[in-house]
């Protein structure tokens, strides 16, 4: 399986561009930060994971696109309003981590 080179903040574009479900929490958080940085066209270092995405200008419908990217990255179907309900990188990463963990077959972790 391929994994996003999170350091360079490459954005996942293709359906085939899926990460391993076994990705660790830090990776997921870093990937999300990179993703958000791309949306905002800002360096990753400027993205504070505790700041609300809406405060950065990621408005309601715009944020829905991010949800599509997360779905593609994790190869999971998610609630479309996920990014509204978990409005910071930290909250989103924590929630996704739980979802991914719940998907792992017993004993896989």
């Amino acid at each position, binding site marked *: 399986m391929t994994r996003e080179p999170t350091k360079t903040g490459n954005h996942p574009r293709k359906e085939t561009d899926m990460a391993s479900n076994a990705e660790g929490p830090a990776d997921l958080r870093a990937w999300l930060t990179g993703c958000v940085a791309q949306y905002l066209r800002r360096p990753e270092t400027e993205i504070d994971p505790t700041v609300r995405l809406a405060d950065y200008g990621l408005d309601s*419908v*715009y944020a829905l696109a991010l949800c599509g990217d997360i779905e593609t990255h994790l190869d999971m179907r998610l609630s479309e309003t996920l990014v509204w*309900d978990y409005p910071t990188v930290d909250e989103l990463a924590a929630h996704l981590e739980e979802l991914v963990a719940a998907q792992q077959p017993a004993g896989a972790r």
Partner: protein
Amino acid sequence: MTAPARLDDLERLLGDPADDGNPIGNTAVLAADERDEMFAAGERVLDEYCLNAEFVPRRYGGRLAGADDLIQVLRTVFRRDPALGLGYGVSSFISSVNVWASGSPEQARWVAGTLLSNQKIASAYHELAHGNDFSRAEFAARPQAQGGWRLTGRKEVVTNVKRARGLVLLARTDERAGSRSHSQILVDKQAVPARAIRDLTRYPSVGMRGVQLGGIEFTDCPVGDEAVVGRPGQGIETALRSFQLTRTAIPTMLAGVLDSGLRLTLDFAAGRRLYGRSVADQPEVRRLLVDAYLDLLICDSLGLVVSRALHLLPGQTSMYASAVKYLVAKRLMDAMHQLSLVLGAHFYLREGRYGIFQKLLRDLAPAGFGHAARVACLGTMLPQVPLMARRGWVNPDPAGPDLFRIGEELPELPFDRLRVSAGGLDGLVGSLTAAADQIVGDSPEQRRLRLLAGQFRAELGDLAEAGAALHPGDLGVDARVEVLGLPARYATVLAASACLNVWLVRGDGPAWVVAALDRLARSIGRPGADRGDRYREPLYQELAARHADRRSFDLSRRVLPG
């Protein structure tokens, strides 16, 4: 009662608009407009018919079943007086859909009872400082320690806010930025302390002059917990879901304006003689008339198909509804403008046989900016484009044929299943490909239709490629013009699919569908059909025949009174 039966009732009540002796005809409509008043005699007739029942789902005692039937009924009103359509009718429709989508059964029953007793409920979203950007709304509902909320702030340029019994207000329920910071608040104006609300002065307007555009100011107005529609914070979601119905239905109702505009222009062109011949015999005039007719059929096809999609593909309509608002509003306004060129100076006069035309033209303009600006609708669609490009536009499953059987029985509107995002599903595009495959045979029409369908498939391929290559930074409100062109072109592909599939299930003659697809293809820079022009003369004859038979020019071809 089936839709056509109750439509006939309403047509009878409203009578022939062109008849000077008709107390609710054009002359009286114009006189009310000149006085900046709602048309009182028209409102009485609509009370008698209880037009509001059209907005109330059957389960709450109203007549709302199929969205396509709702559109046909309201089109009868919009054909005569768009100010009645908005100021008597759809302002309450807009507010009520929030409650049908997310309200409690008690709220829904109250809204139903209020509407069924011919009272109005205003939809108060807009604040002058924020325009389309309603997620920045400042009107605040603050939770109270002892329960309940306090309302403070202003809503401005709102239809009927003064005379309405109820209000659905978009309020900020959380100070923080985000999509869970707003809620709709349902207020019975008679149940709140009179000192806590104040009417602002009326806003005079260019068109829709009779419509009472007002404002309201709340100061620390107490309301109970039961006033919140849905969960606190659900407001943006409720609006994005439920307004899919209104953003589809209202522009499609407004096709009635173009229907009347065409009739007036045909009256004029057929009746007036210049240079020893009828104005209608001028090729340029025929061209403009046929173009307007095609635009009406295009708008009707897309609008009615999407209105059925709300019932049949409710998870997929978030982009479709915005596409209707974008494309239908534009084509209707452009067509009316073109017709005004045929009328020449006669469109500029405010009296006489064609005096109603200038009012129809002015009243149509809010289609472009009211209840979300057209370009804002493109902005709403854009964030879904990359996912569509990866999923929905690559071998999508077609929708079932019921989607295109206009007027046929539909399941109840599933408000709870409307979604803010289509998740990359696109049945209407799937049906484009499926329809193209059904066109076999070697008649010139079949060959042209295959050619045209191929152009839309090619367009879709290009859209998928461009959509997949979009940078996420391109999808926000500062999107570049070329990028906003992607959802605009997509709307044209949807219109093509709607026309082709509606035609397939109707079994009409092919002239209109070939000419409509040709027109749509050329509008996005595709070559169109070779010699597509040969369909124009038969279409003009069809148009003239409908005019002579006093039939509507839309897909329904209804016989009109008079």
